[in-house]
């Protein structure tokens, strides 16, 4: 097996999927979009009922409409390629194999909201993609898919820059991302006001996930109705799932929303799974008894990370790994998250050592609920999720571990 991951940008593995991985030719979406009015593009998006794929699930048409409506000389569209959620790698695959979808989507976005500049915020861990992507952009410029009067459209000037992140998960949060783009610490802002009004450099800014932009390219070419054919009522289209952990075929899968967890597990060859963490470290942990639940905004919304744990895994260790991640990655500005995560981690360590009381663990769960409510950004608001869901769903295993009979005193 080759160990060195080499990048040949645009070279596609054999991937199949109804929407994202369906047929597409570079520039198609741009060509089509430029022949449409901005309103018509927004209508198509509205028909598609596309929701942001970065995790929050905000309707993309609304975001773009508001940004388009904001009055300002300059606007920005930002592609959020900071993909840092543990267990997520679908944005990397899109950028490596399908850059045309992402960049075309950005150009369409720029055209729709009236931005002159698109910025790709590429996580520092993907630095090896920087040069190939920049070369790719250069080619787009040569073909007038970027630059002045794009494809002859008078007055539509748009270009894309890539800025490299530097190893901070929280910078995936859109306002932290903007802060760091502005040369500050990546600390999330107070909201309101939202980036659609006061974003990068104080201008209206639309921040979109890589996958969202890729979906836009398809929607513009094939229509919103076509997209909405897939998935469920509230969760239209398909979703990329990054599957890792105990299964035979880890990797990126495109599945329509509404797929059952058990179906996915079967597809990837997860034979004796006892738990699935959905939505990354900040997501929820689901035990076997709930494998018939569906992946959809109606049931389990997710940014696409699926981590599978088999019968032999120690769920407390899993939880500890997650909490260590949050302690590492909290930006540290707000009290509940800065100190709260440390307390939760200490709680896990207490259980590990067997010197805990249920009273204290319950106090920590309560603290977790405060963190969910009172933290400033999504990181602290979701970091207690694994603590609460793993301790709840796997309490038998966790509190009955052999510790020389010192449990639960």
């Amino acid at each position, binding site marked *: 097996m080759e160990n060195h991951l080499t990048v040949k940008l645009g070279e596609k593995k054999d991937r199949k999927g109804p929407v994202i991985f369906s047929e597409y030719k570079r520039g198609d979406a741009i060509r089509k979009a430029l022949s449409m009015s901005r309103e018509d593009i927004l209508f198509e998006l509205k028909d598609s009922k596309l929701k942001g794929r970065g995790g929050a699930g905000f309707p993309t048409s609304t975001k773009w409409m508001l940004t388009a409506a904001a009055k300002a000389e300059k606007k920005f569209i930002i592609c959020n390629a900071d993909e840092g959620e543990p267990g997520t790698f679908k944005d990397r695959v899109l950028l490596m194999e399908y850059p045309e979808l992402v960049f075309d989507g950005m150009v369409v976005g720029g055209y729709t909201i009236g931005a002159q500049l698109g910025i790709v915020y590429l996580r520092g861990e993907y630095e090896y993609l920087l040069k190939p992507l920049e070369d790719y952009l250069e080619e787009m410029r040569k073909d007038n898919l970027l630059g002045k009067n794009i494809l002859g459209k008078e007055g539509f000037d748009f270009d894309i820059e890539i800025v490299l992140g530097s190893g*901070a998960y929280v910078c995936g949060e859109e*306002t932290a991302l903007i*802060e760091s783009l*502005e040369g*500050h*610490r990546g*600390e*999330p*802002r*107070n909201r*309101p*006001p939202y980036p659609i009004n*006061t974003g990068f*450099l*104080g201008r209206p800014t639309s921040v979109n996930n890589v996958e969202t932009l890729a979906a836009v390219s398809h929607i513009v070419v094939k229509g919103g109705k076509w997209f909405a054919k897939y998935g469920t009522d509230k969760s239209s289209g398909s979703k990329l799932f990054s599957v890792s952990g105990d299964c035979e075929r880890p990797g990126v899968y495109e599945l329509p929303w509404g797929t059952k967890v058990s179906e996915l597990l079967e597809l990837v060859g997860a034979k004796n799974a006892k738990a699935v963490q959905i939505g990354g470290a900040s997501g929820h942990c689901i035990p076997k008894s709930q494998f018939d639940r569906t992946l959809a905004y109606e049931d389990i919304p997710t940014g696409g990370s699926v981590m599978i744990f088999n019968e032999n895994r120690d769920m407390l260790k899993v939880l500890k790994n997650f909490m260590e991640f949050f*302690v*590492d*990655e*909290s*930006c*540290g*500005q*707000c*009290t*509940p998250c*800065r*100190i*709260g*995560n*440390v*307390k939760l981690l*200490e709680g896990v360590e207490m259980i590990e050592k067997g010197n805990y009381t249920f009273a204290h663990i319950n*106090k920590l769960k*309560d*603290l977790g609920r*405060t963190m*969910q*409510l*009172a*933290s*400033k950004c999504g990181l602290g*608001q979701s970091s207690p999720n694994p603590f609460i869901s793993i301790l709840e769903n796997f309490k038998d295993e966790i509190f009955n571990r052999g510790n020389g009979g010192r449990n639960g005193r």
Partner: protein
Amino acid sequence: MEDKKSLRAPVSQKPHVIPKPEHPEYLGGSITVEINEKKLTVPFGTTILEACKQAQIHIPTLCHHEDLCVAGVCRVCVVEVEGMRTLQASCAFPITAPIKIKTTSNAVRKARKHIIDLLISEHYGECYSCFRNNNCELQSLAKEYGVDHYNFGHVTQPRYEVDNSSYSVVRDMDKCVLCKRCVRTCIDLQEVGVLEAIDRGHNTHIGTFLEKPLAEVICINCGQCINRCPTGALRANDPRDEIWAAIDDPTKHVIIQTAPSPRAAIGEEFGQGPGKSFTGELNTALRRIGFDKVFDTNFAADLTIIEEGTELILRLYKDLVKKEKVALPQFTSCSPGWVKYLEHFYPEYIDHLSSAKSPQQMFGALIKTFYAQKAGIDPANIVSVALMPCSAKKFECNRPEMNSSGYKDVDYGLTTRELAQMIKEAGIFLPEMPQSHFDDPFGEASGAGLIFGATGGVMEAALRSVIEFVTGKRVEDVYANADITPVRGFEGIRYAEIPITEVGPVPKLLQHLIPDWNWLKGATLKIAVAHGTANAKKVMEDIKAGGKFSECHFIEFMACPGGCLGGGGQPIPTNEEIRKKRAEAIYNEDKSLPVRKSHENRHVTELYEMFLTDGPCGHISHKLLHTHYVKRGKYIA
């Protein structure tokens, strides 16, 4: 949206406010919200916290400070907004829709308690050994929420070393709650930029450039960060022990000079509302504590006016008549925070600074020379203490050039807070003290010296003398009650033009300096006042660009917002309202004084007759009362 260039603080800490409408009474300018079922109409963009204040609903806060932009980081102020999944920080939430707010729901109370518990679990420090005991926002929050045990454990080891490298500010980060008020103060309010959050997550702490000791970075010692810190994490370098030792030592003659601003604020330390001066009471208290003599810094302020005013006239003369190259505008030099700011940030302008020392240092030099002689005391046995509103004064008296008496001119700078502490230790309740006068030979000073304490005061004091010197008219005939109102107020930068229509008989004191004074006739004196170094920076940038302020003749700069009365050694808390009250106290005291112009202070004229015999800006005065400055620059070695 503000101009991007002025956004020096992290944007997340900027207000990001939705601009409030100019006419809230117009349609759409106001919004009706419901707070705890009570309806209230507020202007669009009002924060929930402000609205609650209007509705007289108390919301606990920690990172919020009226002088500073929004942070929204402590989360103590959270409230419930109907329809929102999470709780919202009321200090950071601008109202733009008719929302319903609940301020005391179960989730809110629980969250606040949790947050306080968390802060306390990491707080290394004991209230009884802390200068903020009984005046600490963390402590009062703990009390308010009935914290009676450590819910989430408690640290037993300090995480950080105390930094007491600086003469002025001591940093004890184990008591820090990371509210970032100091960061916002230093970067935003003062634009000095010494403190920032370092590292991230649980390792986040407030630090300096590469964690260097405060004395080695470009801190200007203004102490504004101390005044805004909610806890004991920042404090002034306290000389009380040394001063008590001197008082207890029978061989030492311990003198204290008191500046006007502490007198106008010290009552606050004794539970009195701001806005009343306790000058007479303080004199008595100081004597009871054991100070041998109590002098009025205003005497030296009057002296400063004469020296600095003379220097200005000489500069103008050289410029206008002799056509020599001189540095104009002349900058005031009595605020040591401002002086250090200029030395660091605009070193090429240090010759614009008046060479006259600050009142504190002038007085120091005189006490160990003139007074020592007169009283027949060996200056080596004099311990000279200065009661100041200011933490930078501690640094100033330790500047190596400040020893023109042959000794350290001023031994200790003592802040208002520290003196209040000494008075309490002596078992004295200041407000109940009988009043008494200052000691001779300096006696009571003029109101001009007194108003140095407020922004614009030095300028007004100088003008009261300059106008009389050159025009021969009484100030009262030009400005009612000698209140030169154009330079008063709290606006960050003020500018005024004073036309000189006539030149009258020049007072004896100055006659020898310039043969003919008529060149001043028809001239227009252009002056400006700036307080807070952020405003000073604006003026300096304008001067650099050759703007309006470069044509000024004289500019008063004060490092602290509000001037000395808002100094870094003043009682905590501080905000604009308190500063205004203190200013009122000072202006009222000025009004009540018989002598209100520096040159009419009889003790000053006597001093020139008896001691500084070659007059203002003469040789003796130059040796004792003037100083020089250092081009420090910004590079941190």
